[in-house]
């Protein structure tokens, strides 16, 4: 079996006249935390949608666990935990209903772990999803993404607009996931400090093109300025020209 969990080759995607992804090629190693960074509209979510099979590769190819996510959605999605920025959990369900519903899809669902996460996140099992706060919804989404102990955890801008406590939970989830040997995390974010905190590898996308990709330490080393190791934020500004998250919470 290949050591890459995700392999993207020459992926190009256009929406009308806009090129969302241009010849993107990347390979994501197993057991690593992979940071996908870029400004808003850079193409991060489009790339993730291809990885999940929500977009069909028009040009190039996408393989996850060696499988085509469009041709074999069950084979891919049953091994993936996904938390999206949109967090479109069905509002009409109660928390316990959503947990019961979700567990039916994943043979590896761990009831004990789900309950542990529910208590850690202080989620009331009788509460309706629509009545939860944004942070609680993010925690519930995280619970659903983690409780089947996925081989690949995909987090698409999970911290956007969330308070520091929820962001801490998300970072904790990433660390917990990689603590299980062989598990992999794909973390897309424009909060570069957060990515820098947990990622081993970083890919930077700008206007649909990969402008930088490699191990984080190597990237930092190769961008030394006057002997000083720059932050990821500084590298981003240098390469892309604009700060990644100018409105970030204090």
């Amino acid at each position: 079996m290949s050591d890459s969990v995700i392999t993207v080759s020459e992926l190009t995607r256009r929406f009308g006249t806009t090129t969302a992804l241009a010849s993107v090629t990347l390979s994501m190693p197993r057991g690593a935390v992979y940071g996908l960074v870029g400004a808003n509209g850079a193409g991060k979510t489009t790339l993730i949608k291809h990885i999940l099979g929500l977009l069909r590769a028009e040009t190039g190819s996408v393989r996850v666990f060696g499988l085509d996510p469009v041709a074999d959605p069950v084979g891919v999605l049953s091994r993936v935990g996904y938390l999206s920025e949109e967090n479109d959990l069905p509002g009409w369900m109660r928390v316990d209903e959503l947990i019961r519903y979700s567990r039916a899809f994943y043979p590896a669902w761990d009831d004990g772990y789900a309950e542990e996460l529910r208590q850690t996140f202080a989620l009331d099992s009788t509460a309706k999803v629509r009545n939860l706060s944004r942070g609680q919804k993010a925690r519930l989404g995280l619970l659903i993404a983690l409780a089947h102990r996925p081989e690949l955890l995909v987090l698409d801008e999970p911290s956007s607009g969330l308070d520091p406590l929820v962001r801490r939970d998300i970072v904790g989830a990433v660390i917990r996931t990689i603590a299980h040997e062989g598990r992999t995390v794909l973390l897309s974010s424009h909060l570069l400090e957060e990515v820098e905190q947990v990622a081993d590898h970083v890919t930077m996308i700008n206007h649909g093109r990969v402008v930088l990709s490699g191990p984080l330490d190597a990237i930092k080393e190769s961008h030394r300025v006057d002997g000083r190791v720059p932050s990821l934020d500084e590298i981003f500004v240098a390469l892309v020209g604009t700060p990644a998250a100018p409105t970030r919470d204090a």
Partner: protein
Amino acid sequence: MRSPAAAIAWEFRQRHRWGLIGVASYLVVIATIKLLVLGGQPVNLESAESFAFAVVVPMTATFMYSLAVFSFGLAGDLAGRQSMYPARMFTLPVTTAALVGWPMLYGSAAMVILWMATRLLAVWPAGVHVPSVWPGVLAAALLAWTQALTWMPYGLAGVRVIAAMLWLATIDAIVLLAIHYNTSETAMVAGLAPLVPLAYLAARFAVARARRGDVPDWRGGFARPGHRTDFWVSRRGRFSSAARAQAWFEWRRHGRSLPAAVGILLPFELALLWVADNTPVLVFEIMLAVLLTPPFMAAFAAATVRKSNPGAGDSNGVTPFIATRPLTNAALIAATLRATIRSTGAAWLLVLVAVPLALTLSDTWPMVSERARQVSDAVGAPRVIALAVLVGAGLMASTWKLLVQSLYIGLTGRAWLIKGSVFLTLSALFLLGPIAQWLIDNDRLGELWSALPLLLAILVCVKTIAAVWVAARLYRGRLVSDRMLVTGAACWCVAVLGLYGALVWLLDSPDMPRYVLALLAILAIPLARLSAAPLALAWNRHR
């Protein structure tokens, strides 16, 4: 745009420009017919069908469309508790009076203008007195109350539909009574006009309440019965499979719409048995209406079933939550089909329980059983039973078919395709009346009857070609397994043969050749459109 009034007007115009262009085109067409084609000559439209299809149906469709547009009903959850007034507008720096007043004013003005244009431009039957003003005022009042009732937050899901149906039906009933008693135009206007400001006050109260987030909650007393509906869950409190969990999801999401709608209408229909005064014709007409209620309501409920994302009013795409379920497209469709079967069953269970109960309580049961006995004596008990079973099964099957037959359009998630299909269907319906009238007027029914086998054969060919194309696409795309394809085809063949056998047994006569029955059986059993549903979902899910 320099004012909130202009901005609100612009939103209505911009968002619904195609619908408004459609209405304007209709008015231009009827004006052209009246002024240019007929040259202002008096017209004698004796046929009720011609009048209905030329004026009544388009007018009613336009009115219903306007109700949805001006109440923001095309972008909200009609059955939900929350106000359907767009929450994004609550944060605009305008008063609640303006938020309510401008849409209500535009809606009322549109209704009055629509009526005046129709009155002036439509081809009305000769000798019929067409009122000048009051129908326009009635339309404005109905719209204003629809706005007030849809913008009101409610304590329970579904109460909005019941409240709106009851109140609007009450207004209609009062108007019908007034017409019956030949009330003058002035009195009609005087009676109807105050309804608009009253509706404005109610709407202002509703929007003010919604704006401050005041949504009443009466669900406490209903929580336990609601919880009991989870019959998909096993005794251990778990779903036994992913397919069962997804079927539960589909049922909870839109499976209850049809039984709820039938449950709301049935009491009103069956209550008529008490006023039918044991008149056989009336009783059987009421029974016919009751039996046609589930398929009729299914046509409306289908709009929610076929929508892949009913939670989001103007979004037709599959939500990432559903799209990332580790299920095949065929399994997702199968869950929808299972939920619709249960939905159909629940709706018919209501009918089957309510009808004997109502017949017994209204003392009309002896009359119905006597008529059944007479028919049984005339044609034989086995045939009557077989006919009853076939009609019952046919009605149930058609209810289900109406729920699912447009899945292949709705699940594509392409707004242009969905709107285009609605437009084509309505256009076909509008053409059907005049064509039927032309056939009757020109004594062409005999020719049509002679050409029927050929027409049926063409339709069968189209259906077969479409089914083969869909099967090839399903096979090539590996969207369903080979086994499922073969099993599906075999089940379809068995159903067609079964229906053909029943039709031959019941209807075999020299006037009805067996090959016609075979063609009818082939056309009656769903195949191509239903099989295309996984293709549509795949096109939507993997864009």
